[in-house]
């Protein structure tokens, strides 16, 4: 493999979302967004919910939603183990809107047994999905 390429795999438990050699990608991690170029130092990091962009080096850019998980960069390959990941065109906006409403309702009418962290995470995911889909 040439030195100015990094092979990127994005996998979720349910399927393989993306697999190709790319030039650069930008991804939200738990300690802030990072950009990864070829020959990046080996790193393992937790992922945050948010927007990931991929540049294949010939002018094609792709935007994806990632819903937390892991990033492993080692040598000439990078693996994104995402809990969920969707390409922008695959995002189900309607579903995200509904999830957003549900989460907002749950947070508004708090009951004792409400798992606040979980509802907030759901809300965050829904908002990010909608944002990415609408920025097309």
């Amino acid at each position, binding site marked *: 493999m040439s030195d100015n390429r990094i092979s990127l*795999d994005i*996998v*979720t*438990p*349910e*399927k*393989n979302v993306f697999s190709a050699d790319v030039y650069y990608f930008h991804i939200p*991690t*738990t*300690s802030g967004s990072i950009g990864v170029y070829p020959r990046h*130092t*080996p*790193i*393992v*990091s*937790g992922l945050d919910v948010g927007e990931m962009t991929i540049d294949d080096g010939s002018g094609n850019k792709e935007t994806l939603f990632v819903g937390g*998980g*892991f990033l*492993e960069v*080692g*040598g*000439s390959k990078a*693996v994104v*183990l995402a*809990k969920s990941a969707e390409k922008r065109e695959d995002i189900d906006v309607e579903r995200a809107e509904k999830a957003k409403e549900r989460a907002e309702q749950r947070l508004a009418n708090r009951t004792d047994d409400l798992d606040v962290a979980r509802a907030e995470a759901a809300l965050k995911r829904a908002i990010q999905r909608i944002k990415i889909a609408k920025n097309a």
Partner: protein
Amino acid sequence: MASMNDIRRSISSIESTGQITKAMKMVASSKLRRAQSAVVAARPYAEKVREVLGSLSNESGASSNPLMEVREVKKVLYIIVSADSGLCGGFNANVTKECERAIKANEHECDVVAVGKRGRDFFRKRGYNLVSEYIEIGDTPTFATGKTIAQDVIKRYIEGEYDEVHLVYSVFKSALSNTPTDVKVLPIEALPAEEKAGEEKEEQGFSLTYSFEPSEEEVLDVLLPAYVETLIYAAILESKASEHGSRMTAMSAATDNAMELIQSLTLTLNRARQAAITTEINEIVGGAAALE
């Protein structure tokens, strides 16, 4: 000999049974195809999680994460993955028996978590302590199902309720065969880094030293539960594929048997019909001869 009407009746009843089994076979084979592709689609994630975990546990040696901590075993939890419905040959019996055998062989106190109705009924009837049950998970299990089960089990493990967790499920080999297997889920044993990964590293001429963001402990805190989740999710998928495979084989055999039965009954029916005609002709001929 049964009367002609009786034979006709049983032929038509077998025919309709045969139609049902044939339909079930076709449904099972299309579900099998889907389940198989789900198994294949889930594999890369599981492999990568294992790979990352392998490279991590290699670096850190003994980890202090509670999920990797080996305790003195007092109580063991068995997760049994079976089907919700029958009519799939020996599938449910094989996996539940394997699980019961493992429990009996285990000298410690054992409790059961049942995934699927058949397994639940089996262990309930035999008076085992069922901790929780997950039934009617459908033909396309989602990762969320595996996650719910994993989180429940992890919670019980961390709280010290159980000191070891096993998972018993059918490994899918082909539509014709699957093997009930017993794997230890918790505590997670340090994984040997895969040989393939090692070769790759050598080719690159340097070994990889990872930096962890935010810290190694925090990465493991999330990665280890994710590993358990994948294990359980993969087991459910394998079990589903095995179930559909077994059902397809069983229903295919049932359809063949129905066809055979119909053939032999039709033969008997034809013989009876001809015998009746012959008797009638004999009677007519006899009657006419008596008139002359």
